[in-house]
């Protein structure tokens, strides 16, 4: 079947989609957006987290056909398009992405795209720096096997603090 979906602001079409296929598969294998990662395909790890109509969800649990006519934002869509030159660390990155780099919250990086989207959603709905309990609760469905999470919490606090300082909201 054919699926029409707006991804990162651009209308896109995927053809020959199998009816039981996930949105994650369509994004990665048919639309060339490998940002959202495929790790468990059962909703347990959060590495496939994307926004669906503004709400963070596990793309592996959304049937492709359910995304028909809806809006998806992946980690690729968070970066600011003309924010800097290629290869320059920090150039074009969203605040949350930049904070992950600055805080050393990325090791192998497999969990990072999902965590960035989920953290982005948390900060979009908070004023100032959320209490640790709220950060932990928000990230409870995102597994990381490398960092031990401390640097990830640092990154979220850093992004929140910078955001509060600059007075902006996601």
């Amino acid at each position, binding site marked *: 079947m054919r699926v029409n979906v707006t991804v990162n602001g651009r209308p896109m079409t995927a053809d020959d989609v199998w*009816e*039981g296929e996930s949105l994650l598969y369509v994004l990665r294998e048919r639309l060339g957006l490998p940002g959202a990662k495929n790790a468990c395909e059962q909703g347990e790890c959060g590495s496939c987290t994307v926004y669906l109509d503004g709400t963070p969800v*596990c793309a*592996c649990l*959304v049937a492709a056909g359910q995304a028909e006519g809806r809006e998806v934002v992946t980690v690729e869509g968070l970066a600011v398009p003309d924010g800097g030159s290629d290869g320059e660390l920090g150039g074009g990155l969203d605040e949350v992405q930049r904070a992950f780099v600055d805080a050393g919250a990325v090791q192998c990086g497999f969990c990072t795209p999902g965590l960035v989207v989920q953290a982005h959603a948390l900060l979009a709905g908070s004023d100032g720096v959320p209490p640790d309990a709220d950060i932990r*609760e928000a990230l409870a469905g995102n597994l990381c096997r490398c960092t031990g999470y401390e640097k990830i919490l640092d990154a979220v606090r850093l992004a929140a603090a910078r955001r509060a300082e600059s007075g902006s909201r996601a």
Partner: protein
Amino acid sequence: MDFLRPTAWPDALAMKAERPEATPIQGGTDVMVEINLDKGRPAALLDLTAIPELRDWSREGGEIRVGAGVTYSRLIAELGTELPGLAQASRTVGSPQIRNRGTVAGNLGAASPAGDSHPPLLAGGAVVEAESVRGTRLIPIGEFYTGVKRNALAPDELIRAVRVPAATGPQYFSKIGTRNAMVIAVCSFAVALDPGGRRVGAGIGSAAPTPRHAPQAEDFASERLDWDGQGPLDPGVARRFGELVAASAAPIDDVRGRAAYRTHALAVMARRALGWAWDDLRGSA
């Protein structure tokens, strides 16, 4: 496989009548796991997420009618006062991403004995609104669960909504697991007090082939609580209530816990939950 995507409820009912073997899908948090892990391949998926009316809830008299498409996240955000037991249980489901997609109707469709919405639906006296082209059937929650992962829906029926009496008193949900998130209940318990009707509702999860009421415990507490004086909860009554809840369970040993542990834990959860609820009632008087 076919992918059916009705945009109106009558169309969904017509499709289900014509294709009773089609698997309804809402949040997909059960259905997609099965497909991804190749545990079963439905002949067709019947996607209900494009039907606007399923996403609404409404108050009808003393009842809250929760549309089949209302997610846990919305239940938590919008119905914490009207349905505190169900909202508490919803807060413990999976992760934020799962709660943003998962629905109570999906929990009912899956009918897992460990589903978290079941104990509060039992304690609160919910009714499942099942519909087909033949008409609407109101199924009392105690009759809905018919076996392990089996429910009372006919092949041509869909869940339109679940109707839950708005809380008239304190309600609590309690769940045992290894972590504070992403946990399938080892066992779970919900209590609901109805001071006007002088009734206590008690529902247990993950401790029998199906979620079930604890009728002896309900009758005992309804009779013995000091509804008029609202004095402190008699510890003997609380303990006995816990024992009766545990006695109405029929747990098994499995990877998540042993039967003996579940029985013990249920008694403790029930005793404590009744205490919390009773204290709230006294505090609000």
